[in-house]
């Protein structure tokens, strides 16, 4: 059957990314309401294990498995994905709003002559079975519901941590459909020479459920150790403001905000940062925000659920040991 709901199953370090699982959950819900099948799209090299895992969530797993797909190459992925999409015309095509998907999917949309809603905050079905995507505009100052009436597929890229991770019930056993990896070599112009990725123990900021961000109030790079310790006991990822990054205390990769990363964790600690609008634009969909700042007028307090006025150098170590005690009890 064609016309299903498709979810791009991005993976990294041998694991399906959390956001892809979140979308398989949402995708299942949409597929059920529409009476359609749910399919997962898996690209990679030597990924039989992942394909098997995906059969717990999806009715079908389209698997492209070839050494050529070891590293993401837009020119290659684009051809394979678009060719199948043209043939099968999925009703809905979902992916996480990740670096890879934001690179690939606008182009897929172009090739399919359809629209794309990037960076969505929610998805639902309208009365006419049309997918409605909620999106932030103007850095989150307003939201809008957008829909793609013209064109198939309806493509949406969704911010990580928007939907819960579904439990693999174990009784869905989808079918794996191995796809031929045939590309027109004249259309492969990009050559990926190298991927440098430090083995990270922590989740990327965009996927982290808890984030501890430090601002200029940290006074220097050495003091971020305090935040690392706090992060350790929460399983959190450490972020930074632009002021911190521009001072060279932290790499740009750690920057939260409009010109850095957009994050949406369950819990966000804003420590020694003032809450400039460009920072807020990158974190204002965090579910719970805690601010620690010595200045009671700091604007971060307007965006926080809990605020502590005080010296971070006193508060943070106390907080870490209190949390250790509390979480150690469990």
């Amino acid at each position: 059957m064609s016309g299903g709901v498709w979810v791009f199953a991005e993976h990294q370090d041998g694991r399906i990314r959390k956001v892809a699982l979140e979308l398989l959950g949402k995708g299942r819900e949409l597929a059920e309401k529409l009476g359609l099948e749910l399919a997962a799209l898996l690209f990679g090299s030597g990924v039989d294990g992942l394909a098997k895992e995906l059969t717990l969530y999806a009715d079908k797993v389209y698997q492209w498995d070839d050494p050529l797909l070891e590293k993401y190459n837009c020119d290659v992925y684009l051809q394979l994905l678009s060719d199948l999409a043209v043939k099968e015309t999925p009703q809905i095509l979902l992916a996480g709003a990740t670096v890879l998907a934001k690179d690939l999917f606008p182009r897929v949309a172009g090739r399919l002559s359809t629209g794309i809603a990037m960076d969505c905050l929610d998805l639902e079905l309208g009365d006419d079975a049309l997918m409605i995507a909620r999106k932030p505009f103007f850095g989150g100052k307003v939201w809008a519901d957008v829909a793609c009436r013209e064109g198939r597929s309806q493509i949406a890229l969704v911010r990580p941590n928007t939907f819960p991770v579904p439990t693999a019930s174990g009784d869905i056993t989808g079918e794996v459909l191995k796809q031929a990896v045939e590309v027109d070599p004249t259309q492969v112009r990009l050559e990926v020479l190298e991927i440098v990725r430090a083995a990270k123990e922590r989740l990327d900021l965009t996927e982290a459920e808890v984030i501890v961000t430090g601002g200029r109030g940290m006074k220097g790079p050495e003091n971020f150790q305090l935040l690392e310790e706090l992060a350790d006991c929460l399983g959190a990822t450490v972020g930074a403001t632009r002021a911190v990054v521009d001072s060279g205390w932290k790499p740009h990769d750690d920057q939260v905000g409009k010109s850095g990363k957009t994050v949406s964790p369950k819990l966000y600690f804003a420590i020694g940062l003032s809450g400039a609008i460009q920072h807020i634009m990158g974190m204002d969909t965090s579910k719970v925000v805690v601010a620690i700042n010595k200045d009671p007028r700091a604007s971060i307090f307007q965006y926080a659920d809990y605020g502590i006025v005080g010296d971070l150098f006193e508060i943070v170590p106390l907080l870490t040991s209190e949390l250790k005690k509390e979480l150690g009890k469990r």
Partner: protein
Amino acid sequence: MNIVVLVKQVPDSEAMVQLKADRSAVEVEDKYTLNFFDSLAMEEALRIKEQVGAGKVTVISLGTQKSVEALRTGVAMGADEAVLLEDPAFEGGDEYTTAKALAQAIKEMKYDLVFCGREAFDDSSGAVGPLVAEFLGIPHITVVVKVQVSPEERAVVVEREIEGGKEVIRTPLPVLISAQKGLNEPRVPPVIGVMKAMRAEIKRLNLDALGLSPDEVGRAGAKEEVLRYYRPPERPSVTMLEGEAPDVVRELVELLKEEAKAI
């Protein structure tokens, strides 16, 4: 080296954005600026031209009279030419139609490289760049933090940012590249550049000049449609915790556990 830079005039981050009463549109305070990432794109184009020692940098924008400002900033920084795609028919468009018109204009130019920003500060989809590349039939590379051009080999080697690392990619020209923070420090336009920009001719292209039909652009050609705008849900007002540090911290942990259920 002929380089095209896509630039967009966007509301300043501080600008107030109000909803119209019927929520069908927004009203934006009249504080506009060149999109931050586009200033990086502009800077990189100029550096490459300077390094190669020949060629032309053309800035191009689709928009209303407001966009002239962005184009003039580009010229003030050092761009050689400025083009505005302007037509009432473009109104109500989306990323798809914007890219379609931009690509159509670029097709008529001689170009080796196209630069754009990682995303625009207002709609922030980051879709326009890759779509332009698709319509031009050239490769693209997004979130780029380093560019090395070898004009003799007609190729570039770029570094792009990925989650937790970097990717190094090589491609022949022409290619479209989207600029990410970290690529460079954009120059402040020199006074002489600003003077030049004030007098610079802005070439205007309308629908006819582009040779597109009215149903390919604007609201008619758009794939995405805004159904309604709204205000994001408001966060409940902040609970300030006061007292001695150890007590406050204990209270916070209790609240995070019992009230917020966040730990």
